[in-house]
Each structure stands twice: as C-alpha cells, then as structure tokens.
C-alpha cells in the first residue's frame, strides 16, 4: 500500500506524541471533577413542567434557547444561498437512460408514505423524540427519491421560494408578537396549561414554532438537493 511511502517518520512520531499528551491531559481533567456537580439542566427540567410540554429537549431548543435556533436557521439559509449561487445555471444534466418500470412505480408509491411520516415526526415533536429538523429532512429525502427515479421531475422554483419566505418571516413575526405582549422576544403568549401535558394541543407556541422550522428546513434541503442533481454537469 502506498501509505508507508508518503508518511515520513517525523509525522508519525509527532502524531503519537500529541495523542499521548492530549489523552493524559484529558484523563487528569476528567478525574478531578467534583463528585456532586450541580447541573444546570435540573433547573430547566423543573421549569419545563410549567410550560406543559412533555419533551424537555424540544423546550430547550425552541423556548429557552430559541434565539440560537433562529441563528441556526440563518446558517442553513446562507448555506443554501451559497450552493444556489455557486452552481451555475448554464449546466444541463442529462440523465441518458430511462428508468425501469418497477423503479418508477415503487418510488411513486413510496413518496406519500415517506412524506406522511415526515409530517408526523414534525407535528409530534413536543410529545416524542422528533421535531422540525428531523421531519424536514425526512421530507427532503422523499423529494430526493422522486428526483433520482424520474427523469423530468422538478420541484417548481416559485413554490419553494414562497414556502421558505413565509416560514422565515412568520418565525420573526411570532417573536415580535411575544415582545409586544409579554416583553420577552419569543415569549410564550398562548395559553399553556400543565393539565394538558401529553395532548396534541399543548405548550402554547412551541409546536407552532417547530412546525414553522420544519417547513423551512424541508424546503431548503429540497432546494439544495435539487441544485446538486440538476446543475452539476459540464456545459
């Protein structure tokens, strides 16, 4: 194999020396931790029952650290924008072979089932593991399945732009409504009873925001995937 010819001995020795040093440093660090650490999560778990949401991770992502989720959506938007700008529009990707009859029928039958599963994971994000990010990417993978099995399938550009814009604007609008009514940006202004924990309609604005996040992430990932398939070849 060609590995031994390309690695000089100084690289290997520096590698092992740094590995040993970092491992001993980590061992010393991890052994000297105090035994009773007061976890920050204990306070949040107690506050979580006041919101009436069963999934504590959803509350942390959407409500207690909702501003970080807004920044994460911004990062995804910039990545999608960059991919759309880099891959030029002049390249035409021709799939030369027509797909098999079995492949076309099976993918047409599977697409609504996968989309339904993605919508289920998105809507039940506050009751069971799941949420907006997972459901949106599941919907994007269903679109990918249709894109690679049919030659002429294309998601219309205007539909994706409309969905993405509406979702992004309504996220900030809900935050501003919370600011005007409760003096908290992204505050919980809808009623959230503790007695409703475990029901579908519970937790105030938390499922609404997660559905908005899911719509935005799903449409963005569909756009990324479509750009990577359709716009890659040489002119």
């Amino acid at each position, binding site marked *: 194999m060609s590995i031994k010819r390309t690695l000089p001995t100084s690289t290997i020795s520096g590698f092992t020396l740094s590995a040993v040093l970092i491992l001993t440093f980590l061992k010393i660090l991890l052994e000297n931790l105090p035994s009773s650490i007061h976890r920050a*999560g204990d306070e949040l778990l107690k506050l979580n029952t006041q919101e009436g949401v069963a*999934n*504590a*991770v959803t509350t942390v*992502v959407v409500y207690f650290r909702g501003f970080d*989720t807004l920044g994460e959506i911004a*990062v995804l938007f910039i990545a999608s924008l960059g991919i759309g700008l880099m891959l030029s529009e002049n390249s035409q990707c021709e799939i030369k072979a027509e797909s098999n009859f079995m492949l076309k029928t099976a993918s047409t039958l599977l697409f609504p089932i996968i989309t339904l599963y993605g919508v289920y994971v998105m809507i039940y994000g506050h009751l*069971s593991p799941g949420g907006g990010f997972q459901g949106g990417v599941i919907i994007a993978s269903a679109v990918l399945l249709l894109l690679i099995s049919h030659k002429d399938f294309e998601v219309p550009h205007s539909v994706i732009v409309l969905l993405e814009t509406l979702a992004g604007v309504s996220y900030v609008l809900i935050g501003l409504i919370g600011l005007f009514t409760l003096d908290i940006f992204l505050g919980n202004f809808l009623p959230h009873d503790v007695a409703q924990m475990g029901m579908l309609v519970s937790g105030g604005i938390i499922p609404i925001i997660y559905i908005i996040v899911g719509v935005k*992430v799903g449409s963005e990932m569909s756009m990324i995937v479509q750009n990577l398939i359709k716009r890659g070849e040489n002119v």
Partner: protein
Amino acid sequence: MFEYLNQAESIKNIVTIGSMVLLFIGLFGLLTQKHFIKIFISIAIMETAIFLFFIGNIFNKNFTAPIINDGFKNVAIMNDPIPHAMILTAIVIGMAVLALGVSFAIEYYKLTGNTEIDKMNEMRH
C-alpha cells in the same frame, strides 16, 4: 468482566479513549489523503467523534431519557437536556457546511479538471 465494565468510571474511560482515537483517525485522513471527497469524509468523522465524546461523558446509568410520559415523573432522575439541544444544532450546521464545501469542489472541477490537491498549483507560476 461484565461487572467491571459496567462501572461509571470504566464507561467514562472507554468513551474518552474511543472518541479520541476516532478523532485522530480523522486527523490522519485529513493530513494524508488527496482526493476532495476523502478530505470531507475525514472532517465528518472528526465531528462525529466530538459528538460521541460530548454525549458519552454526561451519561449516567441510573437516569432515563428527558421525556415525560404518562403523568409526572420525578424530574430529578432524568438526564440533562441542554447538551442534547447543543449537539442537535451542531449536527445540522455540520451538514450544511459540508454541503457548501462540496459545491465548491464541483465548481473547481468544472474549471480546471483535477480532483486531487496535489495538482492544485495554479498560483505557482
């Protein structure tokens, strides 16, 4: 042997050493490989190692997942939900950055036609 491995200290040792070895495998791939896709895969392996290190070191055997079901459980016996939320954000952002990097590689290949970093010497003359 099973009782020795089930202690909290040995689980922490296994997680620390295992994820650091995975990090150094990824670093080795980043330094020696020449194709674009293999460099991106090495970066992704390093990110996976960091996520495993994070979640593995706050794991406590006696606690359960942070989800309340069927009435109120005692909230003191659940895991910490804050690192889970941070790792969720990190996974999504890592995927977005790698997708952008891959589109850069495709555009560079369309311009010059080489896919190895050894032959990227347009600035040398």
